[in-house]
C-alpha cells in the first residue's frame, strides 16, 4: 500500500512539474496574436480615450477634462444624431432581415434556375462598395438617373427629382443603398441555416397536415432562430458603423439629414481637425455598441435556451 501511495505521490509531482512549461508554451503560442491585438486595437483605443479628454487639433493638445463629453451631452444636434443613427440602424437591419429571410426562402425552394439565382444574389456584396455606390449615385441622379426618368415618364413627378438633395429622400435613399449592400450576406447566412434543417422535419410536418406557412413558422423560423439573432447583431454593428455608403452618397448631408454617429465622428475629427471632440464621439460609439452587444448577447442566450436542443 505504502509503495503505491508513494508512487502516486511521485507521479503527481512529476505531472505538476510538467505543467509549468506547458503554461509557458501556451503563452508563447498566443503571445504574437496578443501583441498584434495590443498594437492594432488596444493602443488606438487607449489613445482615443486619452485624446477625448484633450482639446486637440493641428496646433497641439491641451487637457480639458470632461469638457468634450459635456459639450456632447448638452448638444441638441448630437442627440438628434444619436436618434438618427439608431433609426438608421433599426430600419436598415429590419429591412435586411426581412428581405434576407424572403430571399433565402425563395433560394431554398425547389424552383427551376435556383443555382442561377443563388449566383445573382451575390454582386451587391462582391462589387467594391465605392463602385456600387457610384452606381447608386447615378440611379439617384435627377437628370440622368433611371429612377427620376421612370417617375417622370409615369407622371409621378413633373420634372427631375434629385433623390439625394432633400433631407427625407436622401435619408431613405441611403437606407435603400445600405440594404442593397447588406442583404446578400444576410440572405446567404439564412440560406445556409435553412439548408441545415433536416428535410425529414418538413416531411413529418407535411404528413401531419402542416401547410407551408405553418411549417415556415413552426419549423424553419425556430430552427434558424440562433442564426437570425446572430446575424441581426452582426448586421446591426455593420450598419451602425456603415460609413462609406453615406459618405459617398451624401457626405452626411443635406443639412445633416444622413449624418450618423460614425459620419459625425469622421467629420469632426478628420474634416474639422477637432481630434479631441472626435475622440469623445468615438468613445461614445464604443460605449453604445458595447451596451448594445451586451443586450444582444443576452437575447442570444435566451434564444438558444428557448429554441436550442436542450
Amino acid at each position, binding site marked *: 500500500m505504502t509503495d503505491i501511495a508513494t508512487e502516486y505521490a511521485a507521479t503527481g509531482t512529476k505531472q505538476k512539474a510538467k505543467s509549468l512549461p506547458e503554461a509557458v508554451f501556451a503563452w508563447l503560442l498566443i503571445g504574437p496574436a496578443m501583441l498584434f491585438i495590443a498594437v492594432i486595437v488596444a493602443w488606438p483605443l487607449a489613445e482615443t480615450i486619452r485624446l477625448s479628454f484633450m482639446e486637440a487639433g493641428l496646433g497641439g493638445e491641451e487637457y480639458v477634462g470632461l469638457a468634450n463629453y459635456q459639450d456632447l451631452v448638452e448638444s441638441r444636434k448630437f442627440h438628434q444624431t444619436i436618434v438618427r443613427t439608431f433609426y438608421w440602424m433599426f430600419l436598415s437591419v429590419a429591412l435586411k432581415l426581412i428581405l434576407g429571410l424572403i430571399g433565402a426562402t425563395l433560394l431554398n425552394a425547389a424552383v427551376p434556375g435556383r443555382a442561377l439565382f443563388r449566383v445573382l444574389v451575390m454582386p451587391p456584396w462582391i462589387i467594391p462598395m465605392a463602385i456600387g455606390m457610384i452606381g447608386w449615385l447615378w440611379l439617384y441622379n435627377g437628370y440622368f438617373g433611371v429612377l427620376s426618368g421612370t417617375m417622370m415618364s409615369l407622371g409621378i413627378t413633373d420634372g427631375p427629382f434629385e433623390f439625394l438633395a432633400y433631407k427625407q429622400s436622401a435619408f431613405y435613399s441611403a437606407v435603400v443603398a445600405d440594404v442593397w449592400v447588406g442583404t446578400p450576406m444576410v440572405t446567404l447566412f439564412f440560406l445556409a441555416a435553412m439548408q441545415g434543417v433536416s428535410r425529414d422535419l418538413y*416531411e413529418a410536418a407535411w404528413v401531419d397536415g402542416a401547410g407551408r406557412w405553418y411549417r415556415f413558422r413552426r419549423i424553419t423560423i425556430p430552427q434558424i432562430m440562433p442564426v437570425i439573432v446572430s446575424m441581426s447583431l452582426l448586421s446591426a454593428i455593420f450598419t451602425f458603423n456603415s460609413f462609406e455608403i453615406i459618405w459617398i452618397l451624401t457626405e452626411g448631408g443635406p443639412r445633416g439629414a444622413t449624418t450618423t454617429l460614425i459620419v459625425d465622428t469622421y467629420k469632426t475629427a478628420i474634416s474639422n481637425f477637432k481630434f479631441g471632440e472626435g475622440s469623445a464621439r468615438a468613445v461614445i460609439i464604443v460605449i453604445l455598441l458595447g451596451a448594445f452587444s451586451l443586450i444582444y448577447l443576452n437575447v442570444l442566450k435566451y434564444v438558444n435556451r428557448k429554441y436550442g*436542443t436542450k
Partner: protein
Amino acid sequence: MATLSLNAINKSFGSAKVLHDISLAIEDKEFVVFVGPSGCGKSTLLRIIAGLEEATSGAIVIGGEDVSAAPPVERGISMVFQSYALYPHLSVYENIAFPLRVQKLEKADMDSRVQRAADILQLTDKLQLKPGQLSGGQRQRVAIGRSIVRNPKVFLFDEPLSNLDAALRGDMRVELSQLHQSLDATMVYVTHDQVEAMTMADRIVVLNGGRVEQFGTPMELYHHPKTKFVASFIGQPNMNLVPATVQGVDASGVKVELQGGYQMVLPVEASTVNSGDKVEVGIRPEHVTLGSEGLEISVNVLERLGGVSITYGTIGGDTRFCASLPGDAVIAEGAPMTLSVAPGDCHVFDAAGDVLRRKAAPALVA
C-alpha cells in the same frame, strides 16, 4: 383501422425505373414488413404510400378509398421516420402534440390524447424534456407517440430501429410487436434487416430491384422461397448455394452432383430441368450435421458462440460454405470435415434462379 391495397404501382426517377408493377393487398390489422437490400425501392414504396412521393402510375387504396391523389394528411396514415424527425426545439409534449396542434384540437382533448400516448410508451415523466435530452430508444418512442395521437388507419415505419444499437434494437422490436397487438393497427414497416422482418411481421414483402420477389409469412419464406434471392436473403446465417449438375431426373426427384463430387437425389419437381443442366443447391447452415458421409468441407474459420459453432469453409475448392453446428462440436480450423444433410431439407434453383418446388416440405407453423 383499414386494409391497404397497392395496384400496379410504378415509379421512375427520370429514366431510372425504381418500382415495377407492385401490387399488394395488405389485410386489416396486419403487420407487413417490406424487406430488401439497399436501393431495392422499399423506402420509395413506403413514401408513395405516405404521399411523400408520387407514383408514376398505379393506385393506392386505403380502407376502400382511392387516395392516390390525396395529400398525406388525407390518407389516414402516420409515419415514423428513420431519423425520428423530432423537432429539436420543442418539448416531448409538443412533439407528440404537433399533429393535434395542426388540427387545432381543443386543449383538453389534446392533453388526454398526448397523455394516453405517453402512458402507452412510458414517456409520462419525460414530457417536459427536449429530444436532445433523451436516449435513442426514448426518441424513437416519442416519434411513435406522435404517430399514435392521430389515430391513423395505417402506421408506416421507415427503418425506425436502424439508428439504435443492437441491444436496444432487440428491446424495441419486442415493444413494437406489443404495440401492434395493443393498438390492433395495420402497420407497414420497412427494413433491410431480415431478422426484424422475420421476428415482427405477419407477412413479409421481399423486394429486389424494384420488384416483389415474394409476399408471404415468415415461415413460408423460410421453407418455400420462390427464388434464389429470397432463399439467400431470409435466414441467418445465409443459405449456402452450392453449384451442381443434374445427373438424371425421375419420379422421385432430381439426381445432382454437387461441386466437390458428392451426389444426392433431391425430392423436387423437375419439370424445368434436364440431365446435364447446371443448377444450384441451397442448403441452410442449420440443416447440416457432422457425419461420416456427405459434403466434404475444409474449415477456414470457426466461431464458437456457446450454443452453436458457426463454421466457415469451402466446398469443392472455392465455393464458400457455412455450417451451424452444436456449440461443443469437435471441429478444428484448417482441418477437413464431413457434413450430412437430409435431401428433403435441400432447395434446388434453376439457372434463372427460380426454385424447383419441393415435394416434401415441412408443414408451416403460424
